[in-house]
C-alpha cells in the first residue's frame, strides 16, 4: 500500500523522487514480519483455546480442590506476568510495556481474584453475605490497584469495588437495614455510601506527588468518584419529588442519615481544596459542597414537585458554573443539557392545570422550544474550548 501511495504522491508533485527513496529505505529497515507474527499468534490462540475447552469439558469431572488449585495456578501465572511487565524503568533496554497492557493484565488478575471467592463459595457451600467477599477482595487487591493502576480499567475496579461494598452493606438484614425496610443501620450505611467521594482528594493527593507516568490513573479515579456523587445526588433529588419523606420517617432515622451525607461530602471538599488549588480542584470541591447542600435540602423539599425541581436546577446550574470556572467543556454541556431537560419538565408541571386545555399545550410546547434553543445557544456560546483543558485521552 505504501508503494502505491508513494508513486501517487511523487506523481502529484507532493514529494520528490529522493524523498520517496528515503521513505522506501526507512520502511524496509523498519519492516515488521506481520505475517509471521500473525501465524504465531494464531497458533498460540489455538493452543490456548484448546486447553481451555479441554478443561471446560472435564470441569465437572475434576475434584473441586483440583479446580480451585487450577484457578490458583492461573492467578499465580498472572502475578508473574504482572511482575515482569510492570517494570517501569524499562530494564534490559526493553521498551516500556504500554500502560493499557498493564491495566488489562491488572483487570484480569483482580477479576480472577474476585471469582476465586465465588469459586470457594461453590466448593464449600458457604453462606456468608457477599459483601464480606467484596470487602476482603478490596483489602487484598486495592493496594496493588492503587500502586500499579494505569487507567480506566483499574480505576473503575477500585472505585466500583468500594461503591459495590457500600451498597451491598446497605441491603443486608444482618447489618440492620435493607432497601425495603430501612432500619437502625441506615445512618452507618449512608456514611459508607458517601465515602467513595473521598477518592477525589485521594486522587488529587496522588497527582500532587507527581506520579507522572500514572497521572492518567489519578484523573480517572477522580472522574469516576465525581460521576458517582453526581449520579447519586441527582437520583436522590429526583426521588425526593415523589413522596414526603417525613411521613414515613417517624423516628427521624432517614433525616439523620441524610444529614450525615453533608459533613462527609464537606470533608471531601475541604481536603480536595486544601490539596488542589487549581481551577479544576476548586471546581470539584465546590461541586462536592453543592452536593452536600442538596443532600440537606432534599428532605424538607421532598414531596413537592416544584421544590425538588428547583433544587435539581440549582444543583446543575451550580455544576455548570463550576465547569465554566475549570474550563471543563464536557461537564458544562452535560450540565446545561440536564438543566434544560429538567426546566422543560418543570414547565409542564407548572402548567399542569392548563395542560388539559389546548392553550396549555401550546404554552408548554412554546416554552420547550424556547428552553431548548436557549440551552443549545448557551452551551455552544459559553462552552470552554476543547483545547482549554487536557481532554480525556491525554496525560499532561
Amino acid at each position, binding site marked *: 500500500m505504501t508503494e502505491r501511495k508513494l508513486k501517487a504522491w511523487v506523481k502529484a508533485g507532493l514529494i520528490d523522487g529522493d524523498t520517496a527513496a528515503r521513505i522506501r529505505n526507512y520502511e524496509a529497515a523498519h519492516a515488521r514480519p506481520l505475517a509471521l507474527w500473525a501465524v504465531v499468534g494464531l497458533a498460540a490462540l489455538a493452543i490456548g483455546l484448546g486447553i481451555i475447552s479441554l478443561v471446560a469439558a472435564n470441569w*465437572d469431572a475434576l475434584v473441586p480442590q483440583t479446580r*480451585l488449585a487450577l484457578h*490458583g495456578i492461573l*492467578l*499465580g501465572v498472572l*502475578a508473574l506476568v*504482572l*511482575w515482569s511487565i*510492570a517494570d*517501569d524503568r524499562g530494564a534490559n533496554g526493553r521498551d516500556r510495556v504500554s500502560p493499557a497492557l498493564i491495566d488489562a493484565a491488572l483487570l484480569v*488478575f*483482580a477479576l480472577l*481474584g474476585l471469582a*476465586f*471467592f465465588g469459586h*470457594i*463459595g*461453590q466448593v*464449600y*457451600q*458457604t*453462606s456468608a453475605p457477599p459483601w464480606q467477599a467484596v470487602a*476482603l477482595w478490596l*483489602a*487484598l*487487591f486495592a*493496594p*496493588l490497584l492503587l*500502586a*500499579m493502576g494505569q487507567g480506566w480499567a483499574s480505576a473503575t475496579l477500585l472505585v466500583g469495588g468500594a461503591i459495590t461494598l457500600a451498597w451491598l452493606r446497605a441491603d443486608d*438484614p*444482618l*447489618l*440492620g437495614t435493607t432497601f425495603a425496610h430501612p432500619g437502625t443501620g441506615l445512618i452507618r450505611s449512608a456514611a459508607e455510601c458517601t465515602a467513595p467521594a473521598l477518592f477525589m482528594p485521594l486522587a488529587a493527593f496522588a497527582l500532587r506527588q507527581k506520579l507522572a507516568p500514572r497521572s492518567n490513573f489519578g484523573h480517572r479515579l477522580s472522574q469516576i468518584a465525581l460521576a458517582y456523587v453526581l449520579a447519586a445526588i441527582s437520583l436522590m433529588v429526583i426521588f425526593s419529588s415523589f413522596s414526603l419523606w417525613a411521613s414515613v420517617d417517624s423516628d427521624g432515622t432517614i433525616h439523620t442519615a441524610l444529614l450525615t451525607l453533608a459533613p462527609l461530602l464537606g470533608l471531601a471538599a475541604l481536603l480536595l481544596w486544601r490539596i488542589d488549588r487549581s481551577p479544576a480542584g476548586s471546581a470539584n470541591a465546590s461541586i462536592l459542597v453543592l452536593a452536600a447542600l442538596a443532600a440537606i435540602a432534599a428532605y424538607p423539599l421532598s414531596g413537592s414537585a416544584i421544590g425538588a425541581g428547583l433544587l435539581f436546577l440549582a444543583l446543575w446550574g451550580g455544576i455548570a458554573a463550576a465547569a465554566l470556572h475549570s474550563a471543563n467543556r464536557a461537564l458544562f454541556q452535560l450540565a446545561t443539557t440536564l438543566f434544560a431537560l429538567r426546566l422543560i419538565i418543570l414547565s409542564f408541571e407548572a402548567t399542569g392545570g392548563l395542560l388539559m386545555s389546548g392553550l396549555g399545550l401550546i404554552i408548554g410546547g412554546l416554552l420547550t422550544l424556547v428552553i431548548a434553543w436557549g440551552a443549545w445557544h448557551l452551551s455552544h456560546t459559553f462552552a470552554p474550548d476543547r483545547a482549554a483543558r487536557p481532554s480525556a485521552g491525554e496525560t499532561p
Partner: protein
Amino acid sequence: MNPALRLALLALPLAGLGWVWYDTAQRNAQGIEWDVPVTGYDPRDLLKGHYVQFQYQWPVDPPAPSLRKASAAPALSDDASGLCLIGSAPVIARTAPLGAPKDPTAQSCTGIARSPLSTGQTTIPHSGRLYVSEAEATRLQTALSDPHQQATLHFRLRPDGIIVPISLSFQPKR
C-alpha cells in the same frame, strides 16, 4: 517501583486468597453430619441460578398429630435462638427450639443449628441452598418437584451452628 514493594503487592492477594481457601476448608471440615428431610422452596422456581433452594422439615418435638399435616414452620417460631437436634447422627430423632442463647436445655442437645438473624442474634434455620453443577441441576429439579419422592439433605453441622449442605438424596415417600 521498588522490586520488594512490587513483590509484596503481588504476593498479598495470592497469600490472602490462599488463606481464605485454607480457613474455609478448615472450618467446614469440623462438625457432625446429619440428615434432614427437605421440601422444594418455591414450586415455581426451585432453582435460583445454580442453587437448589429448599426448606427444612425438622422433626418437631412433641410430634403432635395436628402439626404433621401443616408445615413445620409455625411450630418453630422466630423467637427461638436456635434449634436443638437430638439423636444419633446422622438420624435426627427429634428437635426442640431453644429459647434464650444460654438456654439450659442446650446441655442435652447432640447439636444446635443456628441461622444468623442480625448482629449477634440467631434463629432457627428454615431454608437453605445447595450449589449444584449445571448437569445435575435439571435432574435435582425434576426429583424435587416429584410428589412421590422425599428429598433428604445430608449436611454437616459446624460447631458454631451453621449448616453446611453436602448432598441431596431421594427416597420414595411412604
